[in-house]
C-alpha cells in the first residue's frame, strides 16, 4: 500500500489560507480531505480485488484525479444532479454513496448500489442525485443538459454537473450539447477531466488545437482551465460556475487539468507513458499537497491524519467483507426493471 509522506513545517503559517474567501468551515475542509483519501484507498483496494478475480470486466480507477471529483462535488446542494462517465467510483463516493454499496456493486452483488446489475461503470443513486455512470464515451453530456432542462422547466434553481474525459470532447454529440446548453441557457456545468490520455492515445494525437476549454468559445460559453490537482482551486472555480448556473441559468465549461496514475483501466498496462512522467505528476499529488496545507494551517495534525487513515482502512476493509459476504442477485430478477 502506498503511504503519503507528510511535508512538515516547523512554524505554523500566519498568512491567510488560500480558502479564506470561500467560506469553508474547518469541518468542511476536513471532509474534503477525508473524501479524497477515502477515494484513494478505495480505488487501491479495488485494484487489488480485481487482481484476485473478485471484480470482472472493466474497472477504471480514479487514482490521481481525486481533487477534481471532490472539489467539484463539495459545493453542491442535495437537490443538484451529477452525471459522469465510466470512471465513476470517485464521484460516487464524493456524493455520499457508501463504500459498502460501491464495493458490492463492483463484486456484482445484490447489495450493490445498482443491485449488481450495473457494475463498475454504472453506479447510480437517484435519491442522491447521482445519475451515473455511463459507458459510451461522450454519450452522456446531453443527458446532463436534459436534466438541467428539466429542473429549469420545473422552476427550480438546481444545477446539474457533468464530468467527462478530454477525449470525449471530440465526439459530435458533445458539441450538439454545448450548443443547446448555451442556446437555451441551461443550468449545467461541464467538467472535462483532462488527464492527457484518451485510453492509450495522448491528447496531442487526438485533438486539434491547444487549449481544450476553447472548444466552448465557439458557443460563447463561459469557460476556463483549472488545476485539477488542486482541490481548493476546483472548489473555487466550481463555486463560480454554480453561481452562474443558479442565478443566471447559464452553463460553464471547465477544463480540469489532472492526471491518472494508473492505466485507463485495469486491462491497460500503460505502455504509452513513461515512469518519469508519472513520478513527476505524483510530486503534485492532490492529497499530499492538501494535507500539507491543512497541517500548516493548523486544521489537522499528522496524528489526526493517521487516525483518519486507520478509520478509512477499516471502512474499506469492512466494504470488502460486506461485498464478499453478500449474495449475487437472484436469478429470478433477470427480467426485472426492463420496463416500469
Amino acid at each position, binding site marked *: 500500500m502506498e503511504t503519503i509522506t507528510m511535508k512538515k513545517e516547523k512554524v505554523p503559517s500566519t498568512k491567510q489560507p488560500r480558502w479564506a474567501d470561500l467560506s469553508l468551515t474547518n469541518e468542511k475542509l476536513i471532509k474534503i480531505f477525508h473524501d479524497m483519501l477515502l477515494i484513494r484507498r478505495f480505488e487501491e483496494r479495488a485494484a487489488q480485488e480485481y487482481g484476485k478475480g473478485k471484480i470482472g470486466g472493466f474497472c477504471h480507477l480514479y487514482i490521481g484525479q481525486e481533487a477534481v471529483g471532490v472539489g467539484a462535488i463539495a459545493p453542491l446542494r442535495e437537490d443538484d444532479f451529477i452525471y459522469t462517465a465510466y470512471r465513476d467510483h470517485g464521484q460516487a463516493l464524493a456524493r455520499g454513496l457508501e463504500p459498502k454499496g460501491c464495493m458490492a456493486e463492483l463484486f456484482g452483488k445484490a447489495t450493490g448500489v445498482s443491485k449488481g446489475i450495473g457494475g463498475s461503470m454504472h453506479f447510480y443513486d*437517484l435519491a442522491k442525485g447521482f*445519475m451515473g455512470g455511463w459507458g459510451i464515451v461522450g454519450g452522456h453530456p446531453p443527458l*446532463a443538459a436534459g436534466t438541467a432542462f428539466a429542473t429549469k422547466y420545473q422552476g427550480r434553481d438546481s444545477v446539474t454537473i457533468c464530468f467527462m474525459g478530454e477525449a470525449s470532447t471530440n465526439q459530435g454529440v458533445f458539441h*450538439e450539447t454545448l*450548443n443547446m446548453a448555451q442556446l437555451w441557457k441551461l443550468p449545467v456545468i461541464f467538467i472535462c477531466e483532462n488527464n492527457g490520455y484518451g485510453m492509450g492515445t495522448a491528447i496531442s494525437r487526438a485533438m486539434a488545437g491547444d487549449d481544450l476549454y476553447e472548444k466552448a468559445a465557439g458557443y460563447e460559453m463561459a469557460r476556463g482551465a483549472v488545476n485539477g490537482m488542486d482541490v481548493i482551486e476546483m472548489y473555487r472555480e466550481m463555486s463560480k460556475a454554480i453561481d452562474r448556473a443558479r442565478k443566471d441559468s447559464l452553463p460553464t465549461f471547465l477544463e480540469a487539468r489532472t492526471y491518472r496514475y494508473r492505466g485507463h483501466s485495469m486491462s491497460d498496462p500503460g505502455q504509452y507513458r513513461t515512469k518519469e512522467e508519472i513520478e513527476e505528476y505524483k510530486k503534485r499529488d492532490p492529497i499530499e499537497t492538501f494535507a500539507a496545507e491543512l497541517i500548516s494551517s493548523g486544521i489537522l495534525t499528522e496524528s489526526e491524519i493517521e487516525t483518519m487513515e486507520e478509520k478509512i482502512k477499516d471502512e474499506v476493509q469492512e466494504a470488502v467483507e460486506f461485498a464478499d459476504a453478500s449474495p449475487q442477485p437472484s436469478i429470478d430478477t433477470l427480467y426485472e426493471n426492463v420496463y416500469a
Partner: protein
Amino acid sequence: MAQLQIREAINQAIDEEMEKDPGVFIMGEEVAQYNGAYKVTQGLWKKYGDKRVIDTPITEAGFAGIGIGAAMAGIGVRPIVEMMTWNFAILAFDQIINHAAKARYMSAGQFKVPIVFRGPNGPAHMLGAQHSQALESMMAHVPGLIVMTPSTPYDAKGMLKSAIRDDNPVIFMESELMYGQKGEVPDGEYVIPIGKGDIKKEGTDVTIIAWTKMVAVALKAAAELEKEGISAEVLDPRTLRPLDDELIISSVKKTNRVVIVEDSWPFASVGTEIAYRVQALAFDYLDAPVEKINSADIPMPYAENLEHEALPSVEKVITAVKKVLYR
C-alpha cells in the same frame, strides 16, 4: 364523433395530454413556429408558447439525449420528441438504445424514462433511399423500448395518449402518406392500451397481418378476395413491441393460414419475428407455411416505376393469400 385526419388525431392527443399535465412538452425540428414539417403540431405553439413547444436545432442525437435526461430527472417532466422522420433518428440511436432503453435496467429500477419519440417512418413517395427507410424492426429489437404503429385516426389518438402516459420510452411510428387519412374519432376521453392489437376486418380463411400503410393494402386485398369467395381476416397488431401474441395466435387458430405484409426490408423484420412466433406457438394449427411480403431488399430507388415495383401491393397480397390456400 368527428371525422379527423390522422395528423389531427395526433395533434389532439398531444394537446389534450399537454393540457392535462403541465409536465408534458414537445420538442423537435420545426414543431413550434413552422407548425410542424407535416403540420402535426399545428397550433400548439400558439396555444402553449416557447416553454412547452420547442424548436430544436437540427441535432437529433443531442435533443434526443436532452429529452432522455429531462425524463430521467424524475421530477415530472415528460418529453415528446418529434423526429422529422425516423430516417434522421438513426443519428439518435445511441441515445435511444444506450440510454433510454437501458437506464432503468442498469440502475436496477431507480430511473423511469417517460419519453415518447414520434415521427413518420417508412417509404413515402419518391423520396429516395435515405428518406424511405422503415426502421421499426431496429427499434423493436431492443429490450426496454415500446414500439407502436397506428394505422387509423382512432388508433393514433388513443395509442399516443397511452404512450405519453406510460413511464417507459415509446417509439411511436407514424407515416407521411397517412397523415391526411380520415377516420371516425369519438369525442371525449379514451385510450388504447399498449400491446393490444385489433382485428380490422373479421374473416375465416386466412389471417393477413399488417400495420400502418399496409393495413389499407390488406383491406383492399381482402375486399378483392371476398369477390372470389375468400374470407380474409385483417389483423393490425398496433403495438409491435410488445406484440399481442394472444390476438395473433387466436386468429391463426381460427384461419390456419397467415400472410404478413410489411413495407420494410425482409431480413430480421418484425414480420420475420411474427412468423417465428406463429410457427412456435401454433405450428399444429397451420395448414401452410407462413407467407411474408416485404419491400424489396434494396435501398429505395427514386424512379416512380421502380419504387412501385419495390413496394408491397394489393396484387402481391392476393397472390400470397392464394398461395397459402393452394389455389
